[in-house]
């Protein structure tokens, strides 16, 4: 049932109906279909408008702090003893993660569309904080849906969102985590169709969201490509990123899709391990299905009920994955590895000790696979890892996992 034909141009997707091979699409209630079409038309118009790009680039430069550096992680490279490892420093962005790249693009689009109320979903709170930030900057009311369990385990981010003027709605339906927050945001959108813009943070949801989020996040991959060519005079052998919904990974991968020599490696969260039911690895431990507006790999039981994902990292704790990743996996253009909670914790500490950078727990999953990837690319290999977020938000979680008190 999965299409496995290799395309000539990987960047030519999605097609007009929002498909990446068999994945993607627009699986939303009829009430939302006119809105999804309206968004698609508005996005095409903005993409074709140089003034939109000029405005976006201005804010990315002066408000977000782009371009972010490409940094040679010398001590970590030496410690691993193989390839040269570079970090794309997205954790240095305003709000401390890559999420703001997409939020800035979408808020400008929302204002072009005349929308006056912004809603979003968040897991760890990073996308919620980034959305609250751009809403504060442009003076728009913001409601962030967050699973009640996540509200409890990410209190500092809830406080941050409140400081930024956003209202955080704790979601108690279903399993009270990110997937339920997304359900609740969709319920809000279907109820408030006239004035509300749904600012999705992941490269998932109904078309055109996966394409649009990817495009706004592709600034990371474009910069990385230029920067590595400048310092090393050649393309990297591997580009590595963690994958939950997959926005940081797809933004890094996309500008390299047609560079056949560059291996694209995503790392999914395997929680307690792939042999257990407690993981969040949709590709490695799920199968295709339909959720939240798109067809993609999902963690589900044999009856098609979505099961709860688990990861120590709230940002990866989602039972699905963006549809473009599902397709890149099936056609063999990208590889998807896994990393357990334990391995991520060790990588978190190692990176802090060797590089003076406290990475987000999400990012730590990608860091943990670097020794294996260094072996794949060999001694003279070049690796670019997306340092997608900073780990200050995670210190309490890490301390608890290590049995320490903050």
């Amino acid at each position, binding site marked *: 049932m999965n299409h496995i034909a290799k395309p000539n141009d990987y960047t030519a997707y999605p097609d007009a*109906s929002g498909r990446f091979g068999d994945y993607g*699409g*627009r*699986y*939303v*209630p*009829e*009430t*939302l*279909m*006119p*809105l999804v079409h309206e968004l698609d038309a508005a996005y095409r118009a903005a993409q074709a408008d140089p003034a939109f790009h000029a405005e976006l680039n201005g804010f990315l430069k002066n408000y977000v702090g782009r371009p972010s550096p490409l940094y040679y992680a010398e001590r970590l490279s030496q410690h691993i003893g193989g390839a040269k490892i570079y970090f794309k420093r997205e954790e240095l962005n305003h709000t401390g993660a890559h999420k703001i790249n997409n939020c800035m693009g979408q808020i400008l689009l929302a204002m072009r569309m005349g929308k006056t109320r912004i809603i979003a979903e968040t897991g760890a709170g990073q996308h919620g904080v980034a959305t609250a930030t751009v809403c504060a900057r442009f003076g728009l009311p913001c409601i962030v849906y967050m699973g009640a369990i996540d509200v409890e385990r990410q209190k500092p981010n809830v406080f941050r969102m409140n400081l930024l003027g956003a209202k955080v709605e704790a979601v108690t*339906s*279903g399993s009270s985590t990110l*997937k*339920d927050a997304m*359900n609740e945001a*969709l*319920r809000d959108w*279907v*109820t*408030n*169709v006239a004035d509300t813009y749904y600012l999705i943070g992941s490269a998932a949801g109904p078309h055109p969201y996966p394409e649009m989020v990817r495009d706004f996040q592709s600034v990371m991959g474009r910069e990385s490509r230029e920067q590595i060519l400048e310092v090393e005079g050649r393309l990297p052998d591997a580009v590595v990123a963690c994958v939950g919904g997959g926005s940081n990974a797809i933004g890094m991968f996309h500008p390299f899709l047609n560079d056949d020599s560059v291996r694209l490696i995503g790392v999914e969260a395997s929680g307690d391990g792939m042999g257990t039911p407690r993981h969040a690895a949709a590709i490695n431990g799920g199968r*295709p*299905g*339909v*959720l*939240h*507006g798109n*067809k993609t790999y*999902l963690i*589900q039981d*044999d*009856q*098609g*009920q*979505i*099961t709860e994902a688990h990861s120590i990292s709230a940002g990866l704790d989602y039972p699905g994955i963006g549809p473009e990743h599902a397709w890149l996996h099936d056609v063999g253009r990208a590889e998807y590895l896994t990393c357990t909670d334990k391995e991520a914790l060790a990588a978190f500490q190692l990176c802090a000790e060797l590089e003076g950078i406290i990475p987000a727990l999400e990012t730590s999953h990608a860091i943990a696979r670097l020794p294996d990837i260094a072996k794949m690319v060999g001694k003279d290999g070049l690796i670019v890892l997306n340092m997608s977020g900073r780990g200050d938000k995670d210190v309490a979680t890490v301390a608890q996992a290590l049995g320490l008190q903050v």
Partner: protein
Amino acid sequence: MTKARIDARFNALKAEGRAAFVTYVMAGDPDYATALEILQGLPAAGADVIEVGFPFSDPMAEGPPIQRAAQRALSKGMTLNRTLELIADFRKTDQDTPVILMGYANPLVTPGYVAFARDAAQAGVDGLIVVDIPPEEADPLADALDAEGLSLIRLATPTTDDARLSIVIQRTSGFVYYVSVAGVTGVKEADADLVAPHVRRVRAASGLPVAVGFGIKTPERAAAIARVADGVVVGSALVDEVAAALAVNESVTARVLSKVESLAHAVRTARTSEPEARTLHGNG
């Protein structure tokens, strides 16, 4: 053959000069045996068409009552296969009442549309509503249903303009479900005056009966909608009765069927009674 059951029922009611009363219940809520007892009692209590929800873990268009109903059913091990068994059990005693399954795409993806359509037709299902499969994504499902003579019933909504309506009604049969409010099930209240012109518009475009649902909870409102539409759908108010009966340890079946009777009476007598007179009864 099964499309015929829906058409026959709406034609008969049209001849009677009244709207259909369409009841929604969740398969397996609160358990298989009780759900079957409720289904078996629905026709005598006044249900003309029965919608049966098949539970899904992530029902994005449902309000709290149906979300909770799905959770209750899932916690008792309800599945799509068991839902079809439930319909087959119901068909042992009722060959005339149309049964429409309603739910979300993902449980159907697992068996595949073709296998599902075959099993559903065998169980005695007549039609299907899938909330998150809009016309743009519906062709593979519509092909599978067509092969078994099952109706794909579409939703038209307050956001459906005339251009969109022509897309919505493609490949639909049986009836069209008009969603009376922009929102989730069981929260906002439907306004018959606002709904009426949309019902006429959808009926004219599709040539099919139009049933109205979302936000109809009381006999008064059901009667008001019955005066302007070909069918009145009540769901959240019925599954709320399941929850209420469980909370006070009453008979779930008796409580649900009693609610159905009062709503059915309102629908059946709507066009022969004065709306002003009915409001004197207050909120039943």
